[in-house]
């Protein structure tokens, strides 16, 4: 362990050699979890005992080479603290059911239309089949939502007569 807060693996550790702000954060977290500890910023014996007890309570694995948990906050301890204090995300809203389409009967013929077989065959013969090119533009094989549109113009069969003078 080094004195600048990182162990030989480069992982952040929190013990008495660390920044008081980081120590106070750990103390505050442990206090909020019910441990009898003050957020003093000093890594004292009470803090070390609380950390050790936290590891035991959370059933964290004892690091290789140690017979029992020590009072140092390593990556496993800080990770567990972070996990405990990470806000539980709000459940994603259930996807809204797609409303059934309104009366689209006017488009039904266009949605289902395919050129007559003889015409398809003639066009395929004319243009050939080029590998995997999408020779057939099948609406059912296309992408995304379906566009249904309609652009009407009302036209009088006879021009209205001008009003009499």
């Amino acid at each position: 362990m080094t004195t600048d807060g990182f162990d030989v693996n480069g992982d952040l550790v929190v013990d008495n050699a660390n920044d008081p702000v980081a120590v106070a954060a750990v103390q505050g977290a442990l206090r909020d979890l019910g441990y009898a500890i003050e957020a003093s910023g000093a890594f004292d014996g009470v803090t070390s005992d609380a950390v050790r007890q936290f590891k035991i309570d959370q059933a964290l694995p004892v690091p290789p080479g140690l017979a029992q948990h020590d009072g140092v906050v390593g990556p496993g301890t800080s990770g567990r603290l972070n996990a405990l204090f990470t806000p539980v995300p709000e459940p994603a809203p259930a996807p809204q059911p797609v409303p059934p389409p309104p009366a689209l009967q006017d488009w039904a013929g266009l949605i289902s239309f395919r050129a007559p077989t003889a015409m398809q065959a003639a066009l395929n013969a004319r243009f050939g089949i080029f590998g995997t090119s999408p020779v057939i533009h099948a609406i059912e094989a296309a992408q995304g939502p379906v566009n249904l549109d309609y652009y009407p113009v009302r036209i009088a069969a006879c021009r209205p007569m001008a009003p009499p003078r």
Partner: protein
Amino acid sequence: MPTDGAATMTAENLLETVRCNLNDFVDGSPSEYNFSPYDPFIDTAAWLPVFLPAFPGAVVSIDMFSSGINVDDGSVVLAEAAPDHWLFSTRWTPDDGGHPVSGNRQFGFVPASAGEFIFYTRGADRTTSQLDNALAATVFGAAHRLWLSFQRRLAAFVNSNGGSAGIEVPVSNRYDWPTVQDTYHRPTVAWVP
């Protein structure tokens, strides 16, 4: 109905006039779309025959412009033709590649009350590729502007040629495909591979 200079057009005459002069009924280059026969030696005779109605199977190429730049092309085939309507289906062609959307668009008219007709274009389509789908707002937005211009120009043509026309409220919506497919996708013709 408008006149053709001599006589009042029938609804069928007007629809045929629109088809044969489609570029005059939409905002064209440099900002929007240009329609032309795909192959002048084959499709001009089929799409714009001199004395006969168009032949189903004619392929029409569409130049798609944005701010004066030809950003994309697409082909459609005249898949159905009748006195009261015609129908374009999008398709892949060697020169134009894939069309940004896959589906069908109909142009036609139906009698309405009080001696009126409703002329319309109606479409059902989805973006063809994942890239097209990523640009769906652009693709469908451009199409929306195009067909709004169709309404505006058709009404203007009628009103400036002795007729009386009014633009009705357009509809342009996107719906969840699986939901629509479950209810309305009932093809009766198989794809020819």
